């Protein structure tokens, strides 16, 4: 934090040292995560727990990609690794997100059934924004996109800023409690 307030060489040097140390720790954290996943799922396979077949598939795929991108190759840009990424991972992730629209429709139906007024108001505003995002809204009413921009810039932003202010104040309060050791029993057992 001091480096934000001063440009003293000593402080800047210390900051650089700490940052590089933290980056090395973060890089090893990735490796540690990989090892953790491997051990957890190997244990499941060894104990034949429920769903151990999925664990086996995960371990096999992970080891296969690691072998394909082993040192000495181009790593992620190696042809075989890129093929896995392009033809398996990207379609799967895109497909998962594509299901979101169906979930939204189902959720809206349930919300309308349980709380018709609130859900109806929310869906009305969502319809205004949705039509403003696509060219159809402009064709229906030329002022529609401008109204959508106002809706996002004023009422929506007021709500978002209120939430952000609350989060910031909560973070500050939590930090102060932590620094004052008020919650030491919770954090330092």
């Amino acid at each position, binding site marked *: 934090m001091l480096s934000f307030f001063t440009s003293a060489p000593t402080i800047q040097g210390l900051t650089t040292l700490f940052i590089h140390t933290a980056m090395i720790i973060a890089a090893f954290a*990735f490796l540690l995560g990989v090892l953790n996943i491997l051990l957890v799922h190997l244990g499941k396979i060894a104990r034949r727990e429920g769903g151990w077949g999925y664990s086996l598939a995960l371990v096999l795929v992970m080891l296969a990609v690691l072998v394909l991108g082993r040192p000495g190759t181009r790593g992620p840009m190696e042809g075989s690794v890129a093929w896995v990424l392009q033809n398996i991972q990207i379609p799967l992730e895109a497909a998962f997100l594509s299901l979101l629209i169906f979930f939204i429709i189902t959720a809206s139906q349930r919300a309308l059934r349980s709380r018709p007024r609130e859900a109806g108001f929310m869906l009305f505003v969502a319809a205004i924004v949705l039509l403003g995002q696509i060219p*159809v809204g402009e064709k229906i009413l030329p002022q529609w996109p401008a109204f959508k921009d106002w809706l996002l810039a004023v009422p929506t932003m007021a709500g978002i800023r209120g939430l952000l202010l609350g989060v910031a104040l909560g973070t500050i309060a939590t930090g102060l409690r932590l620094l004052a050791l008020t919650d030491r029993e919770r954090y330092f057992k």
Partner: protein
Amino acid sequence: MCGAPNAADNTVCDRCEAALMPIGGEDDAPLEPDSGRPPTTADQDAPAAPEETTESTSSLSRLFPGAKPGRGMPALPDEMHGQSRTMTGETDQPAESSPSPSEGSAESGASDDFTPGWLQEAMGKTDFSDSAETSAELPDWLQETNAPTSDASSPEPRAPFGGDSAPELPSWLRGDEEGGTESPQPPDQEQEELTLEPAALPSWLKSLQPEVVAFSDEIDLARKEAEASSGLLAGIPGPLPVEPIVAMPHIVAPIRQAEISEDVRAGQLLRKLQSRRAAAEAEVKQEAFRFPWQVIGYLVLLVALLVPLLLNTKLFNVERSPEPSKAFFKAVETMPQGSAVLMVFDYEADLMGEMEPEAKAILRHLSERNLRVVSISTVPQGPYLAQQAWNQVAKDDAQTQYGQQFINLGFLVGREIGLRSLVQGKFGLDRPDFTNGRLLHTYAAMKDLRNIHDVGAIIIVGSTPETIRIWLEQVGTKSQQVPILVAVPASVEPAVLPYYHAKQVKGIVVGLVGAADYELQTGHAPSSGAAIDSLSVGALAALFLMAVGALAAIGSNRRKRK
């Protein structure tokens, strides 16, 4: 009637002129107490005349214990009525005319002149305590017991037969004494006490009184119980009383279950299982007959999304350029040719359908402007996606080559720490690039680039608000002279707009429509026309389904209310 004394031969009262009854002439006549006076309210409410007679004569019997009330008792003269009523507290007469009890006793000698002969005779007979003749007529045992009663100095009133002689009493008399029967008292003491005695209440009125005696007995009993009778606190009043009765729970007799044989029990279980199975089957049938509205809705949405993509339609054209998009385009246009741009690819494969058109449109514009692009990413998939986008742009323009207009630095680990390192340190020209693994200083794109402050602009293609916030916090604050431009999905637009209004962000490209708009600004036809059609038709279908769902919900709620 009025209580005033009259001569014995008077037939009418001198004072109130009421008719006077002759004395001693009607021995056989039925007793009519208070005859001649008007009936009072108490008389009217009295339940029975005989009881009233008894009550009225009781005061007289106290006054004259020797006189036995009964049918043979003559009617009281008016003067006796006055005395009786005075003693019983009745105040029909004026206060000054009614003599006080003390006066009454003092004037007893004077009033003897008015006392009829029969009454004087009766009074003489009843004065047995002072009469030696009467004592002589008493039996021996009674004389002995009567002797102490003549002692006027005795402080305590004695029982008529003496307390000491109680054991000698016959059993029937002892029983009466124990039973609390009212014992006669000597006439002198009795006379004094009678003057202070309150009026005798009729039985019907007594029945209305609360049982004071019983209550006081209870209090006495409670006091006795409160006083400890044994132990260290013996005789000390006031300890916490012992609960005399221990509250015991009700004892419920165990319900005797009928002995059921194993066969009957098995039969009951079988019947229960069969009923459950029937209910489950009915429920399954009901579910099976439910019309699959939800599946039909999904199919409608799927068709709306797929048809424009499959047919490659161009139904909806982008005709409007938002202000942030214009600012973005203007910032790129004003950059000097040959300058470098740091382009951040912070999105993953799930949002590639929306983010990649933006990235390609921007890369194409940068390439056309002959600007060098240094790519970096803080998410693991970012470097690959950046390379893929560049490859597609380079495919359209044969003059662009990797290493001259574009270079991929790869993944920057550590998020905030990594960005801080990027700001604090250098690019590290002695490390390899992501795509070819060659050292950075060997590429022409990295010429004269030592750190982030040497680039002309930072373009962040980020999929989350947090990504934009981190870059602005860690990099924007340290390199304020470098303009920051962002490209985000439509869902992130509300979170990024404040940065644009605060001029921390110089321009924004939003979503698929924003990418098409940007392409239009650069003079190219939107490459994602079919995707925009798919998005538009899909959005309309979603709105249609929501409206249908709202109507169905309203109808369902109304049916439930009915």
